[in-house]
């Protein structure tokens, strides 16, 4: 597959036209996490514009795509109305697909997975379960140990999950979306 196809895939999936960017840098100037990123958003756009394989690899294996919080400050101010957050969503799924994951992605993916597992099983978020599952995924057992008891005392933590009645619909929704995506990938 030629390298430029990936950029056109990006466009067909998200509607983001990378060539619209003229690197004014307004996104970067207002990004709360730009300083933490390997490549700030405007730089990332330029990498994509070149369309070369090495530059695309740089993008997918950077921490930038994982550190984006989707706060949409960039989109709100972008003079060319480029939907960078949507693009980041897409780049994340691509990074997973091509298994080019920056180490910074691990806890973030783990959290998202734990979150979705919780909904898949019960239909609603089971915060206690989420935290436990996340800890198993990251082996970071000490994190948040300090606040959990206070949360419980303040009535903020249920020990048992709330479940919706129609849990079969949840199974179906997950089955037809996430699971489908997995088979597509193969």
């Amino acid at each position, binding site marked *: 597959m030629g390298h430029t196809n990936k950029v056109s895939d990006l466009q067909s999936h998200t509607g983001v036209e990378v060539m619209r960017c003229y690197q004014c840098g307004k996104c970067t100037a*207002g990004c709360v996490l730009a300083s933490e990123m390997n490549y700030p958003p405007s730089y990332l756009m330029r990498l994509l514009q070149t369309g070369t394989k090495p530059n695309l690899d740089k993008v997918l294996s950077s921490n930038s795509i994982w550190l984006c919080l989707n706060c949409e400050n960039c989109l709100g101010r972008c003079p060319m109305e480029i939907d960078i957050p949507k693009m980041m969503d897409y780049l994340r799924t691509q990074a997973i697909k091509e298994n080019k994951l920056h180490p910074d992605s691990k806890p973030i993916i783990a959290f998202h997975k734990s979150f979705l597992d919780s909904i898949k099983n019960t239909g609603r978020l089971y915060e206690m379960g989420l935290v436990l599952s996340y800890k198993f995924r990251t082996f970071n057992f000490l994190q948040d140990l300090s606040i959990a008891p206070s949360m419980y005392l303040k009535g903020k933590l249920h020990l048992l999950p709330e479940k919706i009645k129609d849990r079969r619909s949840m199974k179906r929704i997950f089955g037809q979306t996430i699971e489908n995506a997995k088979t597509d990938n193969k």
Partner: protein
Amino acid sequence: MSKIGVFICHCGENISATVDVERVAREIGGMEGVAHAIDYKYMCSDPGQTFIKEAVKKYGLDGVVVGACSPRMHEPTFRRACAEAGLNPYLCEMANLREHCSWVHEKSEETTEKAIDLVKMLVEKVKKNKPLDSIKVPVTKKALVIGGGIAGIQASLDIANTGHKVILVERDPSIGGHMSQLSETFPTLDCSQCILTPRMVEVAQHPNIKLYTYAELESLEGFIGNFKAKIRLKAKSVNYSTCTGCGACIQKCPVKKIPSEFNAGLGTRTAIYVPFPQAVPNKPVIDRVNCNYYKRGACKICEKTCQVGSIEWDKEDEIITEEVGAVVLATGFDVKGTDFFPEYGYGQYKDVLTGLQFERLASASGPTFGEIRRPSDGAVPKKIVFIACAGSRDPAKGIPYCSKICCMYTAKHAMLYQHKVHDGESTVFYMDIRAGGKNYEEFVRRAIEEDTVNYVRGRVARVYEKNGKLIVKGVDTLLGGEQVEIEADMVVLATAGVANCGSEQLAQKLHVSYDPYHFFAEAHPKLKPVETNTAGIYLAGACQAPKDIPETVGMASGAAVKVAALFSNDELVREPVVAVVNRLAPPLYSTCVGCFMCETACPYNAIEHEEIKGRDGSLIRNSARVNQGLCQGCGTCVAFCRSKSIDIQGYTNEQVYAEVMSLLND
């Protein structure tokens, strides 16, 4: 049978690159009624035109179709060629093979077939064409110039100097426009007022110029050479024939806190005021919205101070009518205010200024007498940030175009600041530096190299206030996107140049086209930059698009030449594209039964009632008749006529019917 000549142009390769022109000529040559069909490299060239002329004579052609570019481009050229060969010019039509075919399609069988169809269509039309005589109309040799900025001033002076009368209408109480507000001008840094005011005085004193300030165009009727302009003279409340311009009334006016338009809101003025000291005319008007007398019915202090009794409280707006032959639009531009920028504080921070406001701060005649001081506390800003492309090149804000002048004036502003505040630090956030122009690039380099202005390539995401400072969050994209935060004392936005307010309505009054941003549209982007789509109306200056002073002046002189050329003849020849009501031999006289639906539909009141009388003088019927002086040839009446009794020359029912039938008949 018709003898039509068809001439297919290659337009260099513009047409022949995608259309098989030989095939077009070949196939058309086989059409019924086509006596001669050829193709040639440049039909509009001299040899090309000669081909047409010779063919007209040789084959005795009674119709010509030229398959070339848009008729909006070369129809007059080819019609003239036909006329020179003795063929009535209105028997010549053009098929648009370039703009509507070769340029918009790839090279293919279909493209050539479409070209054939387009030519066929016009061949069928030409078969139904009738010889027409052009209509001659007299020309009123007086010009109307709308807008008294540098564009209007220049155009007026140039026209007046050719010996023709000019009426100059200005909306504000004084002429001068934006140029009078500028401090110094790039790239020479000479004082704007010093070069402008002599011209303003010249306008006021020129015997051929009639100046109406505080006036607006109410309506414009008619057509090229014969416009009738209604001008509203807004009530000045001051009798200019007696007023001496002593200014005593202004001194005594108790309403002093009105934001001054001339100072872009940074200074104040009184309710009776002269916008600025060098105003022309240098006599005051009363701003009725803010005047105590008009607001509350009491005050009249100005009247008491006026020794010549010039105050006219009850004066009403007056509407005058002027007959003119041409109009020059020179209504200029405006700049976006700081309130247009959510990310820069919605205009709530006093020390965030527009470029125009900075001009006033830097101007010796401005509110701070040329010292750069913060509007909030009067302090001299030690750190100043200029943001270029504020609103321009920003499709999200609805302004995708480059405002053209900002790069240069921002460099000038930074330079002026460094000259005035020696220990100050100035930063310019820019995207690109566009300094195309004589000595422009050198000027910007001077700002960077000699005046140590810090140019940072990147846009600013946000400006907010904290502890009396303006926090500017920008970025240096040349350092890979490093965030730059500056605690500034003043921020100047090079806000986008936009169409002047009311330009859309004005364009509609004049029937001239305008672009999506409400700038007036030129008739052709390259070859007719000062003409509009409406004959007799010309453009000068920034009302067409943002432009700097030299360009504006050049354009104004160009418009003036167009007007002078129009006025060089006593008569003007008009296209005979007008409606006609059919006339038949008695006893029918006409198939028109006089329902006068055309009369209600006509935008120009060109339909008249005609009483058709028999020999004995008795009324046979009322029929419609078209006044050819008033008719503009839109043909709306034609489509309404149930009995098809009215038709429009050049686009007759027979002609358009033949076109439609040919197009699909296969």
